[in-house]
C-alpha cells in the first residue's frame, strides 16, 4: 500500500524534516506514528497525499509513484484517501453539512448518496445536531470530529489522521479510536499520528516512531514509549 525508500524532505527554509526514511505499510494495516513534537510525523503523512514532495527518494502509495506524480493526477490520488488534518482545514465559509458534501461532490457522488453518507458520518462522530454550524461556531472538539467525519465520508481505502484526538476528552477520543478500528476492520489501511500515549498503549497496534526525521522504532503491537528491556 505504502512504500517509502530513502526519503528525505527538506523544506524551503532549509529545515530537514525527514532523513532517509525507509518504510512500508501493507494494505489493511493499522499503524500509529509517534514521536516528540517537530519529529516529522506530519511531514511523513503529507508526503502520502502529496502536500509535500520528497527532495530525494521514492514514495509509492497504492501502486502509484507519488513523488513524481503529475500535478493533474494529484486530485485523483487524494480522492481515494481520507485525511484528518492536524489543523482540521474545514472550509470556513461552509457549514458542517456543506463541508462534507463538498468532499463527496468532488468524487462525483449523487445527491441521494450524499445525503445518506453525510447522515451516517455525522451520526458516527455524534455531530448530527451541529450540521448547520459553521466551523467558527463549533468548539475545538466539534471541529476535530467534523474533520474526522469528512475524512470518513468517502469510504477511503487509506485513512490518514494527524493528531485526531488532540482536542477531545478521553472518552470521546476512545470512541473515535474504536471508530477508526472499525474502519480498519472493514478493510481500510489506517495511519494515525498521535501524542496520546493512553490510546496507543491500549490499542496495541503497530507503532512507528520518528525522531528528528529518523525512523527510530517500528514495532507491531507496540506501546507509546519504547519499553526499556
Amino acid at each position: 500500500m505504502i512504500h517509502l525508500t530513502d526519503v528525505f524532505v527538506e523544506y524551503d527554509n532549509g529545515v530537514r524534516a525527514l532523513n532517509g526514511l525507509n518504510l512500508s505499510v501493507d494494505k489493511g494495516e493499522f499503524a500509529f506514528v509517534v514521536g516528540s513534537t517537530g519529529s516529522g510525523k506530519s511531514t511523513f503523512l503529507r508526503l502520502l497525499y502529496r502536500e509535500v514532495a520528497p527532495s530525494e527518494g521514492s514514495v509509492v502509495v497504492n501502486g502509484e509513484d507519488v513523488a513524481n506524480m503529475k500535478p493533474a493526477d494529484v486530485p485523483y490520488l487524494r480522492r481515494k484517501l481520507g485525511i484528518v488534518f492536524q489543523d482540521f482545514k474545514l472550509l470556513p465559509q461552509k457549514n458542517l453539512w456543506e463541508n462534507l458534501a463538498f468532499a463527496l461532490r468532488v468524487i462525483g457522488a449523487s445527491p441521494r448518496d450524499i445525503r445518506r453518507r453525510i447522515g451516517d458520518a455525522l451520526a458516527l462522530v455524534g455531530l448530527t445536531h451541529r450540521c448547520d454550524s459553521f466551523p467558527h461556531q463549533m468548539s475545538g472538539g466539534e471541529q476535530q470530529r467534523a474533520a474526522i467525519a469528512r475524512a470518513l465520508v468517502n469510504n477511503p481505502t487509506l485513512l490518514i489522521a494527524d493528531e485526531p484526538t488532540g482536542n477531545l476528552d478521553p472518552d470521546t477520543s476512545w470512541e473515535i479510536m474504536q471508530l477508526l478500528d472499525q474502519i480498519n476492520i472493514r478493510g481500510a489501511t489506517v495511519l494515525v499520528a498521535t501524542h496520546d500515549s493512553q490510546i496507543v498503549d491500549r490499542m496495541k497496534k503497530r507503532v512507528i516512531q520518528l525522531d528528528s526525521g529518523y525512523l527510530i522504532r517500528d514495532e507491531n503491537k507496540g506501546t507509546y514509549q519504547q519499553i526499556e528491556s
Partner: protein
Amino acid sequence: MNLSSVDFLIQEAFTGIKRNGLMAFASISTIALSLGILGTFVLVALGANHFMASQIGKFEIAVYMNEKIDLTQTQAAADKIGKMPNVASAVVLSKEEEWAQFKRTNPNIESAGLQHNPLPHSIDVRVTDASQTTSMANKIRLMDGVNTVRDGREELRRVMALARVVRGVSAAGVIVLLVTATFIISNAIKLTLYARRREIRIMKLVGATNWFVRVPLIVEGVVFGAIGAIAAWLLLKLGGVYVAQTVEKLPFMAQFSSDIPSSVLALGLIIVGIAIGAAGSFVSIRRFLRD
C-alpha cells in the same frame, strides 16, 4: 463532469457570493464604476462619430448664385434644376436665412468685424443617384447666374478626415479605458481570491481538481461582471438623463447625442462585463492553484 455536478458548481458560486457580502459588493461596484466610465466614453465617442456622419448627408450639390442674382431669379433657377433628370429636390436657401443659421453655429464670425451679410443666395440640390452627383454638378455649373457649384466632394473629404481623427482618438481612448477597466476589475477579482486562498488550498487538499475549484469562481466572476454591467447601464441611464436636463441649453450638445438604442448599450456592457469577469477570474485563479 455530469449535469448534477455542473448544477452543483453553479450553486456553489451563488452561495459563495451570498456568504461574502462585502467582497461581492466591492467587486461588483468596482466593475460597475469601471464599466460606467468606459460606457460614458463609448457613448461620447459614438455621439461624435454620429455627428460626423450626420454632416456627410448634408452636402450633395450646393449651388451658389452670383451676388447680383436676387431671390426670384434664384427660385427660377431652382425650378429649372428641379426638372432635370436625377434630381430629387432643389431647395432655395435665401442669403438671410443662411447667414442667420451660419451665425448661430459660428458665433465668433460676428466678432470678426463683418459689416454686411457676405453670402449669396444658394440652392440645395439633392440627387436620386449619388453616382450622378459630379455630372449633375457640371451641368448646373454652366447655367446662367451660377457662380460656384460644390458637389460635396471636398466637404466630404474634409469631414471624413476629421471623422477619421475623431474616430481614431476615441477608439484609442476606448481601448485605453477598456484595458484600464479590465485591469482594475481583474485586480478586484484577484483580491477577492487572495482573501480565499486558504479555502482554495483546502479544496485542493480534499481532492478537487483545478476545474472543480475554478468553475464556481469563474461563474462568480461572470455573475459579478453581469451585475456590474447592469449597474453601469443604470448609472449611464441616470447620468444621461441628468446631463440631458442640465446641458440641454447648449445647442451643440444635441447634435452629439448618439442614436444607439439603450438595449444595444446594455447588451454590449453585459458582454464586456461577463468577458472581463470570466477572464479576470480565470487568469487570477491560476496563481492560487499552482500548489
